[in-house]
């Protein structure tokens, strides 16, 4: 992606803060758009209806999910057997299946109407935010990599290391309140950063492709942590033969944010702070400028006097630190009773989709993570209530990203008018995906 031949490329690097002060925030994924005026082309896309595109993409993905649900529903199958004698039965069965599924999805993620009072009814929303918490952190990590042109697939390994380090500090030492929590979190962040930095150093010093190295490091981390967890005297809980660590000391556990009836912890506040920090880093700091310069065109960055190799290392350190934070959140906020080698729960890969959906902008990632958190929280309810496997959520999530990435497809499906940037169709086509910088 580094040197796509688009005329709009050069302006992407021009630093002109406040060039479009009048631009307002337009949609869920473009929260940052008003401030991030560097992507002039991307901004034009947003103004010419990208928020609409995003919403329609979600709608289209949900429709696809509904079709899947209807196709596999038993009642629909039975009713379609006599479709030509009583077609209404089939349609009512489809309606039952789909509305039941999405109804429980909503009740599991936003507000549960079957509860009498607000305190219980709003509980699903807090669940959504809890599920979103690690996704924000890890998604930010992947996004930082994307902005610097690096693809960090190593989320799994970095989360495992982050979780293991935070967990170890959490159960091996008994420290005073406050200090313990911070130390465990710092250990997690550091471990994630170092594990990821390894890939950065290898890329900088030897030219090893970061995609291949981070994939490999995922497996190495998994087996290493498995070994530590199944060896006495290391991470394994004393007096147990299971590959599982002891539980955390109470002082290392994140306090609940809204009282004990909700699972939401202060981890959520931490990731909001992290989102601010990443926004500042990428858009206001010189380090972030170097990241984006390297991401746009490493050769130009080198000519401009940026040390590209060191930048690779810094990018991976920061990316890994954020993902390590997600790992620490897993052991300090979610599963505090001891962790296994499955503590990452696939979040390292979910983070990639989150970063893509958020178009690698910090606030975009934040809202994307909340959407995915909602789908996850609702998906579990849907599975429990309606018996629909939670895997449907993966389908919906991936379709959303796929559709959002291809605005022309959405426009074709919904017969929307073409954006006014028709004057330079080639450039705008490239600009559309330019926002998510990869490779």
């Amino acid at each position, binding site marked *: *992606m580094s040197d*796509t031949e688009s005329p709009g490329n050069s302006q992407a690097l021009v630093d002109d803060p406040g060039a479009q002060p009048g631009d307002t925030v337009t949609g869920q994924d473009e929260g940052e758009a008003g401030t991030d005026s560097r992507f002039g082309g991307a901004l034009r896309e947003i103004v010419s209806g990208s928020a609409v595109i995003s919403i329609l993409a979600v709608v289209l993905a949900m429709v696809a999910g509904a079709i*899947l649900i209807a196709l*596999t529903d038993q009642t629909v199958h039975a009713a379609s057997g006599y479709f030509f004698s009583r077609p209404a039965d089939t349609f009512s069965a489809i309606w039952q299946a789909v509305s039941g599924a999405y109804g429980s999805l909503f009740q599991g993620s936003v507000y549960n109407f079957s509860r009498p009072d607000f305190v219980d009814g709003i509980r699903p929303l807090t669940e959504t935010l809890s599920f979103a918490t690690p996704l924000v952190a890890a998604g930010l990590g992947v996004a930082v990599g994307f902005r610097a042109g690096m*693809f960090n*697939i190593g989320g799994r390994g970095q989360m495992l290391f982050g979780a293991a380090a935070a967990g170890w500090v959490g159960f091996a030492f008994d420290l005073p309140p406050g200090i313990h929590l911070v130390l465990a979190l710092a250990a997690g962040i550091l471990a994630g950063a170092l594990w990821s930095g390894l890939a950065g150093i*290898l890329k900088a*010093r*030897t*030219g*090893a*492709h970061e*995609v*291949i*190295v981070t*994939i*490999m*490091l995922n*497996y*190495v981390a998994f*087996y*290493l942590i*498995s*070994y530590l967890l*199944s*060896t006495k005297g290391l991470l394994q809980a004393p007096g147990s033969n299971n590959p599982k660590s002891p539980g955390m000391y109470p002082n290392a556990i994140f306090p609940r944010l809204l009282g004990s009836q909700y699972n939401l912890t202060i981890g959520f506040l931490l990731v909001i702070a992290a989102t601010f920090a990443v926004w500042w880093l990428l858009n206001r700091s010189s380090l972030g400028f170097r990241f984006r310069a390297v991401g746009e065109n490493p050769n130009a960055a080198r000519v401009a006097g940026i040390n590209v190799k060191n930048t690779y290392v810094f990018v991976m350190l920061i990316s890994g630190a954020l993902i390590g934070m997600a790992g620490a959140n897993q052991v300090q906020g979610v599963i505090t009773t001891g962790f296994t080698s499955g503590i990452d729960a696939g979040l390292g*890969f979910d983070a*990639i*989709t989150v970063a*893509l959906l958020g178009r690698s902008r910090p606030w975009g990632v934040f809202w994307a993570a909340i959407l995915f958190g909602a789908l996850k929280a609702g998906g579990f309810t849907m599975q429990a209530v309606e018996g*629909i*496997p939670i*895997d*449907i*959520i*993966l*389908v*919906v*999530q*991936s*379709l959303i*990203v*796929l559709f959002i*990435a*291809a605005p*022309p*497809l959405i426009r074709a499906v919904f017969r929307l008018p073409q954006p006014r940037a028709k004057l330079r169709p*080639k450039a705008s*086509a*490239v600009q*559309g*995906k330019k926002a*998510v910088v*990869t*490779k």
Partner: protein
Amino acid sequence: MTAVTSNVGSSHGAPGSSVVALATAEVKSWKAPIALGSFAVIAVILFALVTRAGTGISTFRLSTSQDFFPLPALQLPTRATGVVVSILLILIALAAAFLVRQSRRVPIWVIVIYAILFMFGFLAWAASGGTVPIPGLLIGTVGLATPLIFGALSGVISERVGVVNIAIEGQLLAGAFVAAIVSSITRQPVVGLLAAMVAGMLVSFVLAAFSIKYFVDQIIVGVVLNVLVQGLTSFLYSTLLSPNAQALNSPIQFPRVNIPVLSQIPIIGPVLFQQTVISYIMYVTVALVYFGLFHTKWGLRLRSSGEHPQAADTVGINVNRTRFWNVSLAGAIAGMGGAYYTLVVVGAFNKEMTNGAGFIALAAVIFGRWDPIRATMAALLFGFATNLQNVLGVIGSPVPSEFMLMLPYVVTIFAVAGLVGRVRAPAASGRPYIK
């Protein structure tokens, strides 16, 4: 680790002299000798200094019962073998250092010999008092590597034509899923295999359509397709396959076919010629892809579309059509690899049964420098390392199994960092061609 010494040209000769020697730079890369040296140190410590329990005799079994003539089992004294291997490894490392000092490259065959020697020494050390079944080790290698090889070939074709294929995992999984269903319904494994090719191709269609028609970033499409296929197959597995396992998820498998005569050659026979049809197709595919890529018009067009699409377009090649159909072809090849899971190895579809094989195949593509033969070798290396862990688990491994399982990935990192170095992808791979 790279030292650059430059000899500034001797242009300060006699005034008026017309001979001007140009400045030259010699680039010495010390990575290979350092890597070889560190492994040699490990070898000395492990093989020569650490004493293993057991009888002190390591046995290598070379024959199976069906061979023309039985080869005697190789019995070696463990300690002495370790010492000899260590000395040889040190000598090779020194030779590599000497070559680099002379500003010459370390040839790849030296590294291959080194690796084989190291592995031999390791096996002898690990198998003290036990028996290593060499044919079994290699048969498992080919078996485990087969889907990886299909996946790697898919990646090679796709990237050579200019489309990054992260979706190998999805293509494998789709192939496995569809092969299981179709083979269960039709009771014909061949039909299942064909259906798997179609399934892989469908995944490729999406990849190609989005990346070529809509210019969506190819890595994004690939990653998302993996998630999509994983979600779809898992969802359909839970809702359709597992309630109707008898009807939909009990595929007829391919039988093992022994090729007459060839299958009775010691070691090579059981390893290569007592496999299933899919493996034989794999041999042919590797050869065809290699020949096609580098010796036919099709390959030339394919590679030019991936290296310099503008140039290809100028000479009349329809770049986007070339890309579309070759990406589809790549998907079909990966689909066959997926069918190998359900039609040969497991015999039923399970959720996420490919378990990251697509990513390993991707690593093999990069490790193999986008070359079909080298990528196949890399895939075989992964298969070997995985199977080594299985075999050593049986004879009692001195190393915790987690570290054995880690080995292929560590080796890959070493290889990519130290021995392959700065790999160069096809120049236009990952970039849409916009006329």
